[in-house]
């Protein structure tokens, strides 16, 4: 693999008048962690961008090396929006692959910083909010001057009716449990996005961000006990973005339908589980076990949940085994749960204690039966 990359590098350096990478090893490392060409091309297509992989790759390489000579950006006529698109490409691929690489995240940050330096409002907004959040969290990296500048920038962006600023403000409000104001800003964001897309004539707009906002609005409605609105928002979120971005909406919607439409609820939970949404496994297991009375299927879901060390799934799996008279697996599950004990949260520890105490007799009786 590396030899192929080296060959590719030599071709690339011959083709380009300027050497973009100083070291072959660095190039090999970059190509090893950088997403595949097809994936990048597909994501660029999804983002409706005119940029090409060939055009962007040297820029990615350049920024990856933290090269201070940024003439390549001018040379290739890369705008600040293009830098944000490059960041989005990496972000989306990371999200789809569900894998995190620190170096790729650094690359994303570098792209964000560059975009902000080139005057991109989205980047400025993200960085400003990041500074404020870091200060609130008490991180030493930020000083008061930076925070002041960030606040000023946000104020200016507000005056410009910049949609992302409204969304990020709402996110902050949401995290500080100020749901009424958060809802107000989220709605303003949606309004601004709608205005923006209608003026451009692009109906699709920023659908993933909108879906995220609808999910948040749904969660707020759920917290305020307005389940009718919550349902409406979750459905809207699901309509706007693919499942990998709206897993939360699927999950919450399944909870809403649990009483009135369990079939729908089950389908939604299955969709969640296809994305590895860990909370969906115990839910599916218990739904199959108690509502559909399909013990084998319940066991299957619990087994999947156990693979990601969900304590609840161990309980369910144990119960399924007992119902199916599979005492050997029940006993194994019981032992595994005791091993798991040290690596779980305090809440789970309490639950495990309770479970072990209750089920000890079940296994004792079985052993006595076997001995007799």
């Amino acid at each position, binding site marked *: 693999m590396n030899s192929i990359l080296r060959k590719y590098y030599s071709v690339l350096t011959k083709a380009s008048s300027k050497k973009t990478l100083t070291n072959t090893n660095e190039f090999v490392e970059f190509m090893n962690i950088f997403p595949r060409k097809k994936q990048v091309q597909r994501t660029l297509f999804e983002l409706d961008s005119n940029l090409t992989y060939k055009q962007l790759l040297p820029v990615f390489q350049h920024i990856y090396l933290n090269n201070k000579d940024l003439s390549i950006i001018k040379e290739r006529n890369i705008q600040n929006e293009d830098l944000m698109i490059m960041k989005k490409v990496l972000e989306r691929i990371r999200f789809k692959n569900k894998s995190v690489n620190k170096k790729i995240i650094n690359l994303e940050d570098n792209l964000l910083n560059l975009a902000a330096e080139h005057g991109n409002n989205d980047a400025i907004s993200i960085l400003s909010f990041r500074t404020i959040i870091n200060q609130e969290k008490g991180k030493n990296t930020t000083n008061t001057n930076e925070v002041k500048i960030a606040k000023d920038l946000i104020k200016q962006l507000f005056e410009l009716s910049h949609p992302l600023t409204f969304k990020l403000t709402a996110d902050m409000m949401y995290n500080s449990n100020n749901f009424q104001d958060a809802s107000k800003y989220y709605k303003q964001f949606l309004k601004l996005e709608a205005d923006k897309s209608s003026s451009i004539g692009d109906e699709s707009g920023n659908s993933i961000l909108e879906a995220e906002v609808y999910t948040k609005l749904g969660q707020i409605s759920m917290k305020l*006990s*307005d*389940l*009718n609105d919550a*349902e*409406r928002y979750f*459905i809207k979120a699901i309509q706007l973005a693919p499942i990998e971005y709206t897993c939360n909406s699927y999950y919450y919607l399944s909870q*809403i*339908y*649990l*009483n*009135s*439409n*369990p*079939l*729908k609820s089950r389908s939604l939970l299955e969709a969640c589980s296809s994305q590895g949404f860990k909370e969906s496994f115990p839910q599916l297991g218990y739904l199959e076990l*108690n*509502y*559909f*009375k399909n013990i084998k299927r319940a066991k299957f879901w619990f087994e999947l949940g156990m693979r990601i060390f969900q304590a609840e799934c161990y309980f369910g799996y144990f119960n399924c085994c007992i119902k199916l008279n599979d005492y050997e697996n029940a006993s194994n599950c019981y032992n595994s749960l005791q091993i798991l004990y040290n690596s779980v949260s305090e809440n789970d520890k309490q639950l495990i204690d309770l479970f072990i105490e209750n089920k000890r007799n079940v296994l004792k009786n079985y052993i006595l039966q076997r001995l007799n």
Partner: protein
Amino acid sequence: MLKLNSQRSLPMTLFPKQSIYAKVESDPKIGRWRKPIVKIFRLGVYIVKYYKTGIQETYNIYKNSKNFKMEINKLTSIDLKNSSSPITELYKYVEFQDIKVRNTHLENNNGKDTSNGKPITSHIPITRKQLVEYYRRNQVWKLPRFALIAFIFEEITALLCYIWPNIAPHNCLSPGGYKKISNSLILQRNKFQAKNKTKKMIENSLEYNSPFSLSTNELKLKLRNSTASKVKLFIYSKFQNNKKFQEKSLNEFYQYIYLNDRILLENILKPNLFEEKNSITRLTYRELAQEILERQLYEYDEDINKMVNDQSEREILLLRLIIYLSYIYDDCIGINGTQFLHSEKWGAANMNLLENRGTVSQQLVNNDTFSNIHLL
């Protein structure tokens, strides 16, 4: 009364044979020798008129209840299209409202229930008439078959309807046909219980059974009271070899019974809701008979129509209904403001409730039970 009952969707409770005969008998214009023929003729005319009205009303109900789905759409602000039944949507809406009412109530009182037993129920913005007519609209599919039978057999149709009452739309049934249906329903139930010894299970009201966990025979038994198309049910079970349609129909039937009970209770607890002039909840004889039939609050060989038309027997039926309602809805949020929802108390769509008669022994109240008490 207009918004509570749907007279047009239900059959008569008393066959006016005696009154027609008495009228002919007392009519001096009809010669004595003509009287037996006139009696039969007038009875025939009455039956034909009854069928005609029944057919017309069945069609009208079907036409008028089309708006029900739109009203539910407006209520929930979600375009249902073909996704799910309006009854399920209404059930969900009521559940959401109950949760909201409970949480708001508890929030305002710092988590304490201060209702003191007063109802804090959410209001269902649909009338009982709308609900029952929507559920009974499926009878329209009996019309083509019924019209064909009437066309082929002409005057013998009445006799055929007496022998096989299920061929006629529900509002074309005679009291005799109604009794046949009610007897067959309760007989099936008793036979099934005896065979499967489920009575013990039903007596234990804590036992939970969802519609999706029942066997095909249990599904059939529980669906016999619903208006789900029997042909469809048969085709799905025989040829498709899956129970999904039956399970969904049963779930919908359960939701219908719940909503029907809720609206009736809401009416009893807040009597001026529908009845602007009079504060008494007036359930017609036909509706009372139907309520008793759907909830199986009668024994084999009891003639519900006859009971409904007799004052003391009617009081017994009312008492059975009240006992049933108070047992099923006792301690639920919609009724007395405690922290439980109906589904939290009994479990989501607990099918055992469809067999529950509201008494511990599942024995119904009758004249013997109250021989020493005079009912007012």
